[in-house]
């Protein structure tokens, strides 16, 4: 039997015709007139029944598989079935330094603390948001009445997160020892949940429960909870069975869930935070209020919406394959993305055996961070990733981070334009082509394993308007070299694709302008040679005969003994452009990505009267 999940079979007329055909093949009904009104009506009813049933069956079947399900609830449910918990909304987080200066206040305490949930206000695009501390922070008197607060890891950069602190309370009834507790909030950031269980309604002592995915082992006394998305987008809290899979709250217990209900990415970028209240400093003579001095260390980043269906579809199988342990390269990528996905745009992991320079016993991680992630946040994330790896690695291999090796692409797009086929001006069409080219690069480059394909881009250009008769594009590949000004330096640049062979007409390698030993120069290859020279821009003479070489087939360019005084144009780097050996594509290799350089790319219309 052939079975596929197709909707093409669900055409009513086809169903009716097939039914007719089937009945005609039956000797008992072979000679009936199926066009007659009575029988035709009967066939209509049966065909409708078939159509209806098939439609439901088709939909039910589609919703049964992670790759074909359309409903978010189905995708979430299927992902959870293989152990993947889709990410909830994520609150943006920032880091700040907090301090209180009491001067020489008599009788001041030696230690001050401010509680979890201390609030700060900020605005982004004229919309006000509230951030708050996610744990208690403490400070010690420096002897002069200055208190600088630190978190529980002794860091002065205190993390604050955006959101409204919500407390949800449940009472465990007699008949519900294995109940689930629904938290009706689609904006919940589940990573901020703090679950405590009280013995009864009046007691103040409580037991803290932790997320199941953070549990190292589970027995009947383990205090763990599971927080998962429900089909309607809310979240439900559940506990162990009370026997072997963790402790279950008992009848009469009070469950309190505190969490942040967040705006997600809307508050990303917030960089000025104002405390909503003063800090109380008690002395023997009474309480004294002082301002909390707040200095931003890193602006708010990593706020995100709930994980998308496509992301769940892609990540869940890899998460299942990893089984929460890091063995294969994809395990590393999957688990890092699962835990730090709110910071990461793309990730590539590979063993040292696959590195360009082999290094055994090492796993390399290359991460493209989201655009709003600062260097400080990225550095902190790398430390946290290493700590995570130490917990989840089966073999204690070293983790090494390798920043993505970026090769920039410069596209010179020209198209034949016949004005008689359009009412738009040449400039309008040129702008539209420019948008198409920019969108192509935005959607198809910038991540690992994304390649530039000229034919694909030109197909989009040709479709812009009937007046665009044909198009072509030249491609240059570009590396950026950041020198230490005034120093004699050497460097090796690795292009993502091979460089064109040198010729005797024009240089295939050429850089942006800079000053070297007081002369305005550019790097160029000597005609018909792999040798790189410094050419004076003012008189086109060779200023330095040999500053390196390049190898076309490998795309490796070496700079030797280069001295840069200053760079023209305000950049901190020199752009070294090269003709691509194969301008029809650029496929980055390991750890490489290609990115569009809009500044050195252009679109140009060539007006023609031909058809």
């Amino acid at each position, binding site marked *: 039997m052939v079975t596929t999940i197709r909707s093409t079979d669900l055409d009513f007329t086809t169903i009716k015709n097939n039914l007719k055909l089937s009945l005609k093949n039956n000797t008992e009904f072979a000679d009936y007139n199926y066009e007659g009104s009575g029988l035709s009506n009967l066939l209509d009813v049966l065909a409708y029944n078939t159509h209806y049933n098939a439609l439901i*069956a088709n939909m039910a079947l589609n919703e049964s598989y992670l790759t074909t399900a359309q409903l978010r609830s189905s995708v979430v449910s299927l992902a959870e079935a293989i152990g993947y918990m889709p990410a909830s909304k994520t609150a943006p987080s920032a880091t700040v330094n907090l301090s209180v200066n009491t001067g020489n206040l008599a009788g001041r305490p030696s230690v001050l603390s401010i509680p979890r949930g201390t609030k700060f206000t900020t605005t982004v695009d004229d919309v006000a948001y509230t951030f708050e501390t996610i744990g208690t922070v403490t400070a010690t008197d420096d002897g002069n009445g200055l208190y600088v607060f630190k978190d529980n890891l002794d860091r002065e950069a205190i993390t604050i997160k955006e959101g409204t602190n919500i407390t949800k309370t449940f009472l465990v009834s007699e008949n519900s020892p294995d109940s689930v507790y629904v938290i009706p909030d689609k904006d919940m950031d589940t990573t901020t949940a703090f679950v405590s269980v009280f013995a009864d309604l009046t007691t103040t002592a409580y037991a803290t429960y932790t997320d199941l995915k953070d549990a190292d082992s589970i027995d009947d006394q383990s205090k763990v909870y599971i927080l998962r998305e429900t089909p309607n987008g809310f979240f439900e809290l559940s506990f162990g069975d009370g026997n072997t899979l963790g402790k279950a709250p008992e009848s009469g217990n009070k469950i309190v869930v505190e969490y942040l209900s967040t705006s997600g990415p809307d508050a990303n970028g917030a960089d000025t935070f104002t405390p909503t209240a003063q800090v109380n400093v008690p002395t023997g003579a009474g309480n004294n209020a002082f301002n909390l001095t707040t200095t931003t260390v890193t602006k708010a980043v990593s706020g995100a919406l709930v994980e998308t269906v496509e992301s769940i579809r892609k990540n869940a199988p890899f998460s299942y394959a990893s089984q929460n342990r890091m063995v294969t390269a994809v395990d590393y990528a999957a688990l890092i993305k699962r835990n730090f996905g709110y910071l990461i745009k793309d990730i590539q992991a590979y063993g040292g055996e696959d590195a360009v320079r082999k290094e055994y016993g090492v796993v390399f991680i290359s991460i493209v961070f989201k655009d709003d992630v600062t260097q400080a946040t990225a550095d902190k994330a790398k430390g946290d990733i290493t700590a995570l790896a130490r917990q989840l690695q089966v073999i204690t*291999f070293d983790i090494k981070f390798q920043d993505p090796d970026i090769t920039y692409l410069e596209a010179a797009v020209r198209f034949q334009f016949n004005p008689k086929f359009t009412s738009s001006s040449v400039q309008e069409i040129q702008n539209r082509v420019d948008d198409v080219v920019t969108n192509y690069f935005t959607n198809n480059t910038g991540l690992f394993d994304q390649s530039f394909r000229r034919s694909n881009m030109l197909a989009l250009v040709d479709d812009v308007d009937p007046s665009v008769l044909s198009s072509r594009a030249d491609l240059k590949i570009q590396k950026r070299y950041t020198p230490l000004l005034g120093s004699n330096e050497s460097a090796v640049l690795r292009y993502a694709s091979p460089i064109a062979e040198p010729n005797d007409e024009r240089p295939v390698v050429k850089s942006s302008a800079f000053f070297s030993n007081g002369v305005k120069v550019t790097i160029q290859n000597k005609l018909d040679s792999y040798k790189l020279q410094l050419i004076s821009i003012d008189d086109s003479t060779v200023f330095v005969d040999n500053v390196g070489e390049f190898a076309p087939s490998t795309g490796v360019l070496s700079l030797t003994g280069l001295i840069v005084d200053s760079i023209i144009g305000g950049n901190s780097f020199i752009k070294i452009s090269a003709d691509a050996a194969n301008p029809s594509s650029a496929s980055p290799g390991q750890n490489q990505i290609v990115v569009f350089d809009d500044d050195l790319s252009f679109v140009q219309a060539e007006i023609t009267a031909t058809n």
Partner: protein
Amino acid sequence: MSLDKTLRDINRRPLSVQDKKQVKGILPEYFQTEYPKFASFLEAYYDYQDSDLSPTRLIDELFLNRDITQVDIDLLSFIEDELLLGQQYFEGFVNKREAADYSSTLYKSKGTKYSIEQFFRVFFNTFVDVKYTKENVFIVGNVHDIEKEKANQNAGITPYAPEITVSASRIGHESQRYITNDKLYQKYALLIKTTLPIQTWIDEYKLFVHPAGMYVGGEVQIISIAEPDYLIMPPGIPDSDGPRYVDQADVAVVAFNATNHIVQDLGSRQEPFTLNPFQLGQFPPNMTLAAFDLNFNNLANVQNPGSNTFDDDSTPADPSYPKMSSDSKVLMNFSNDFF
């Protein structure tokens, strides 16, 4: 014809939602007497529903859609998407259902020798030999009889070098040791011997079970099947007698000489071991067993002139029996005592 001995219970669910036999049971009785044609017509309709022409055949699949054993092979590919990282590999799997069935076990044992063997069994229907080649790396240093030193330690005798737990390697092809290199013969490497070329399996292998950070080498095994005809004794030639055990003689050797056997202690029994006369000729006739024991770790040392060592500080009990010789045909090592 052999019997089907499979234990798989295909079609083990007695479910049929489109069974035409149900028609007459469900229709009111008077329909069957007054409108028998209509009942037959409905049965014909259900025949159509069961045919490939009808899209409602998918209804039957609803009950099986998550059943790896019975789900239609086309739909199984969707399960493979979830459990086996995408169906681009699906067509390559030899045992598609088993691959899905055992995915959890495979993933949980990832990084182990077992997982590698299971991977090849399930995905390529072949057996492999997995070697951790660090065990074949040549180790430079002192040669020690580790077991003997342990025994000495247990017996209260101060071991020669208790801190050394790995003996240095011996030179010679028979030791199967290799100088450290940047591929197989270093700490983080494994070798997979299989009948398949590495290009066939390397991508899937790395995706599913390979511990990132380790070098993986492949060796193609060419396995011949012996032709049994060659092993049959031609007719008319009687089998010769097999070896016979006659008796055991205890050999009490107190001094070594060229005409004696050396007694090899094999635990509870003693067994004669005859040395090559050529080698025996290299030793003085009055060499005692005690001196012999101190100079050689085991009989293999004596038997194999090629098993030289890089022992740099040997101290023979009796300097009159140096271990070293410039004659390459006899036992030798590189003792500092000699050079």
